[in-house]
């Protein structure tokens, strides 16, 4: 049986090629994902291990001892000195770090914002910091001096003695580069930027004078990490904890693993979709092969092969195909991983260098996925093969699949679609959380129902294309009839394409609605002309609003500060704003009271919070601020909250004194004459043309939101492209098989005078019709799911609005048409090149 199966695979290798490619692509996606993530993981692990080389024990603020409002600073200079004096400690280093924007020579921000960090250079007794080796110059010693990491210096062309512009939380700082250093720091290894300040400056910028975020200790020879930790713990305050370097490294490696596993899961979901699409193609191919080989299989039965043997022979064939596709897919996956890394590099995301990592798991999973998927998909066709009676060997009847059995199929399909749609509709009326279950289940059931129903749907939908096809004369007429000739085959082919397009359309509808919703919300709730924020969305110092307020064009300015406060035992994030100007900058609809009395201890509250605490205008409540002090606040007004503004709002004059570090998330500005280019540049100039600060008007914010959505959608499109490509292979496969099966017909048509162009056109039109059929179903389902999911989002994001992306939908439909044309290229060529005489004789 094995020999027969292998011979069959070899005999049909051309016809199995597309199937193999489909499986191969799916496997390549899976193995590519696995290789890529494990390569990243290995590289990050290595760089993080290096980063902890200098750390035997680290002292950190204890995160479990919730540093809620009122907690004292954890790591002081005194603690550091005490730790340094402990027996067994070779050296103690204190560090603080945070965001530090660096402008390149053109004034642009270096790097991505997330990976541009600043830290302190902790000068030990010999004036050196073991973590950093000065390659040129010396370490920074006072305010106004910095050192740059060597890679960044190379990239920007800065040298010792240059003056560079940096920004930590708003104001532009002009600094002199005193040194260029090399380091094992993980962030730098991963392509980030590191700016070193002297310790006092860094503490002032990132913490408070004399305070560290972390103290690291190296052990004297002969002292173990555990022993050192024990010794340090003796002197620690309750709010700090000591962790060994080993544990830190392990924790970080686990964090990296977790982060990457999220990415891996995400990508595997899309690989799974591609594989699922592949299942249709595999099943289709084996169904066709079995049908074509009816006589052969019946002969095997006639000469004594049992049903099980026939089934097994088909399954072994599938196994061989799957195994070959698995192996080649794995190899292709390694290429995919290398390509992904290069792609990320070219997108500006720096990933650490290192060899591609192919683990045993990757190999096993790839091979297993390839073979298991193929064998499972071939299961039904194999069962069908076994049902062929031995007598079929004698009859000359072609085993053309009938429409028999479609009645049962259609009934099941209708029930599934109705049930699925019902569940989805039920979900739209529910809360966001409760809706997930019924909606997800409903969508799955409905899609399966549509799969089952596609053969039925194919006739009317393709008939609808009739008038258009008539324009193409005989070719069009024949193409239409060929497309509905084998409804099951057409359905399976179109379904494969449908899956990708359903997801693509659904996501596009959702993203469009959400984008519109957010834009609308911004437009409705903001009356400010400009919003000033940090490029990496970190905080801005109060200096920013002061500088802006000093500009004569500015008529109103308010920071948006955020600070935790304890109210009624719960932590609420309260918002500090300028009571004088906020009314000009935010549009708030008051259901009760107004902004008139706002200021001092008079606060305004959003309706939800007010309801939760049972407040109304005039209610008073106690609050414990960040610094532990208590205050009595009075509600002056209740406004309708939305996703942008929903909190207890109080005046900065009240909040600022209680904040540990006074900074704002954003600053809102209204200027004389509204938005204009001149105003924008004036505001930017007022802030010292800081590369790290964004000054955006509403339009720019909309654009930023739009570009964020575009980026996200493009990424999803990219991930779903594989599913579409696999579906295209399916169309090619179906057409090639059809051309092969109909070769005598095509030969006859050629003989009685259909020219090559018309034959090509016939195949092409059939392909386009099948593809458009899949496209129409996919877009239809996508819109439905997009609408349903949007209903749920709408219950959270009140301004969400269903926007049917007509342009995109037309584009997707056109794409389906193009898919059809492309898929037909090879089969149509084959059909046109058919040897007429051989084709007519072959019967």
């Amino acid at each position, binding site marked *: 049986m094995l020999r027969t199966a292998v011979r069959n695979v070899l005999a049909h290798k051309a016809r199995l090629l597309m199937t193999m490619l489909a499986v191969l692509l799916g496997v390549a996606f899976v193995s590519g994902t696995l290789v890529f993530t494990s390569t990243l993981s290995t590289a990050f692990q290595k760089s993080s291990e290096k980063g902890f080389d200098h750390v035997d024990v680290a002292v950190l603020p204890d995160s479990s001892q919730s540093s809620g409002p009122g907690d004292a600073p954890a790591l002081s200079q005194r603690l550091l000195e005490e730790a340094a004096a402990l027996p067994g400690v070779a050296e103690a280093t204190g560090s603080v770090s945070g965001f530090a924007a660096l402008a390149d020579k053109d004034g642009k921000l270096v790097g991505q914002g997330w990976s541009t960090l600043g830290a302190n250079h902790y000068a030990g007794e010999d004036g050196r910091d073991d973590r950093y080796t000065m390659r040129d110059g010396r370490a920074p010693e006072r305010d106004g001096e910095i050192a740059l990491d060597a890679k960044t210096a190379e990239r920007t062309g800065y040298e010792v003695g240059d003056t560079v512009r940096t920004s930590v939380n708003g104001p532009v700082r002009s600094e002199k580069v005193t040194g260029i250093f090399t380091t094992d720091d993980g962030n730098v290894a991963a392509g980030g930027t590191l700016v070193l300040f002297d310790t006092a400056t860094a503490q002032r910028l990132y913490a408070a004078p004399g305070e560290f975020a972390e103290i690291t200790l190296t052990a004297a020879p002969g002292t173990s990490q555990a022993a050192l930790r024990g010794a340090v713990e003796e002197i620690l305050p309750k709010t700090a904890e000591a962790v060994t370097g080993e544990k830190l490294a392990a924790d970080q490696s686990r964090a990296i693993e977790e982060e990457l596993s999220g990415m891996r899961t995400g990508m595997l979901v899309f690989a799974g979709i591609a594989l699922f699409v592949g299942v249709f193609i595999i099943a289709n191919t084996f169904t066709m092969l079995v049908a074509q080989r009816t006589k052969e299989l019946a002969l095997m039965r006639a000469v004594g092969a049992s049903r099980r043997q026939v089934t097994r022979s088909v399954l072994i064939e599938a196994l061989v195909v799957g195994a070959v596709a698995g192996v080649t897919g794995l190899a292709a996956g390694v290429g995919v991983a290398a390509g992904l890394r290069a792609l990320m590099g070219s997108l500006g995301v720096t990933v650490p260098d290192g060899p591609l990592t192919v683990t045993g798991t990757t190999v096993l999973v790839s091979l297993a996925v390839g073979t298991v998927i193929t064998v499972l998909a071939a299961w039904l066709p194999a069962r069908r093969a076994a049902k062929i009676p031995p007598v079929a060997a004698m009859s000359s009847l072609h085993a*053309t699949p009938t429409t028999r059995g479609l009645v049962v199929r259609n009934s099941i399909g209708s029930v599934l679609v109705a049930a699925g749609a019902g569940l989805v509709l039920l979900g739209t009326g529910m809360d966001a959380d409760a809706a997930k279950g019924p909606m997800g289940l409903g969508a799955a059931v409905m899609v399966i129902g549509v799969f089952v129903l596609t053969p039925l749907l194919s006739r009317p939908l393709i008939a609808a294309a009739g008038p258009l096809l008539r324009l193409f*004369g*005989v070719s069009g*007429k*024949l193409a239409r*009839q*060929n497309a509905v*000739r084998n409804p099951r085959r057409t359905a399976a082919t179109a379904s494969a394409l449908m899956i990708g397009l359903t997801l693509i359309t659904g996501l596009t509808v959702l993203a469009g609605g959400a984008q519109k919703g957010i834009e609308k919300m911004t437009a409705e709730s903001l009356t400010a002309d400009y919003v000033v924020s940090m490029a990496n969305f970190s905080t801005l110092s109060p200096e920013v609003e002061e500088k802006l307020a000093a500009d004569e064009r500015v008529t109103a300015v308010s920071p948006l500060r955020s600070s935790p406060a304890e109210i009624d035992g719960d932590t609420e994030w309260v918002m500090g704003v300028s009571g004088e100007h906020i009314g000009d900058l935010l549009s708030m609809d008051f259901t009760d009271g107004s902004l008139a009395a706002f200021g001092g201890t008079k606060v305004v509250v959003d309706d939800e919070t007010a309801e939760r605490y049972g407040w109304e205008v005039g209610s008073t409540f106690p609050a414990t601020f960040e610094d532990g002090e208590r205050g009595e606040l009075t509600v002056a007004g209740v406004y309708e909250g939305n996703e942008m503004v929903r909190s207890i709002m109080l005046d900065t004059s009240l909040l600022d004194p209680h904040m540990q570090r006074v900074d704002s998330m954003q600053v809102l500005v209204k200027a004389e004459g509204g938005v204009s280019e001149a105003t924008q540049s004036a505001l930017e100039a007022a802030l010292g043309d800081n590369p790290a600060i964004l000054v955006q008007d509403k339009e720019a914010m909309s654009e930023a939101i739009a570009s964020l959505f575009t980026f996200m959608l493009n990424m999803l499109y990219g991930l779903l492209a594989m599913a579409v490509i696999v579906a295209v292979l399916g169309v090619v496969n179906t057409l090639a098989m059809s051309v092969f099966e109909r070769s*005598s*017909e095509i*030969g*006859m*048509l*050629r*003989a*009685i*005078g*259909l*020219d*090559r162009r*018309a034959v090509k056109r016939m195949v092409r039109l059939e392909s386009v019709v099948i593809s458009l059929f899949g496209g129409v179903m996919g877009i239809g389902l996508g819109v439905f799911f997009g609408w349903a999911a949007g209903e749920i989002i709408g219950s959270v994001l009140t301004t969400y609005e269903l926007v049917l992306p007509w342009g995109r939908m037309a584009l997707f439909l056109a794409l389906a048409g193009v898919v059809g044309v492309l898929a037909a290229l090879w089969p149509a060529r084959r059909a046109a090149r058919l040897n*007429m*005489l051989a084709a*007519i004789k072959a*019967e």
Partner: protein
Amino acid sequence: MTTSIQPVPAGLSGGLAAASATDLSKVYGAGETRVAALDRVSLDFRQGEFTAIMGPSGSGKSTLMHCMAGLDSVSSGSARIGDTELTTLKEKKLTQLRRDKIGFIFQAFNLLPTLNALENITLPLDIAGRKVDRAWLDQVVSTVGLSGRLGHRPSQLSGGQQQRVAVARALASRPEIIFGDEPTGNLDSRAGSEVLGFLRNSVRELGQTVVIVTHDPVAASYSDRVVFLADGRIVDDMASPTAEKVLERMKGFDAKGRTS
């Protein structure tokens, strides 16, 4: 009517030739493996005549038909349909010629299963984009006895009926000549004789020119003239054949084949 069935020896005809071959050769392979399927064959198919081509397997009878019908290329010589020289025609023109001037009947019927009988009959006209001549079509349909079955799909018709649809298809476009490649090869004798009867009627009543390739003496007996081929050459040309005469002649070949 009677004059038109009078056989006229090849080459002597004053009547117009619907198709003709001059020194037609078809060679496969080269050198040692060189095989001449047709060896300088010259032949006319006269208008309004029913010709049968016969010969043992491998005699080149099918090749001759394929070459003269523009389905196969020739190695040398000339093949003409009416005044049109086929050997110099480009693929596209040749396809057009087949479409407009030639009708085909195949052994395996070769109907399109997706089209009903009527649609199959008018297929060549559809391909050419020509209008259907209703009166002619009715005449053809009634000649082959398919009225009442025009809405059926091929799978709903018997083999004989399917071949009658094929005959009607060949007739529908009023081609200058109809070629049939073993048109009764897949039929039982009753259905076969029906189809041959229709072909003969089309010659008698509609003035059609028909050429068939067959190895069946009974089928050949329906024709006006039988051309015998052996080893790629014309070895005999028989007028007013009967099944017995043809069978006798064929036996002669077999004997000669064995002795030579």
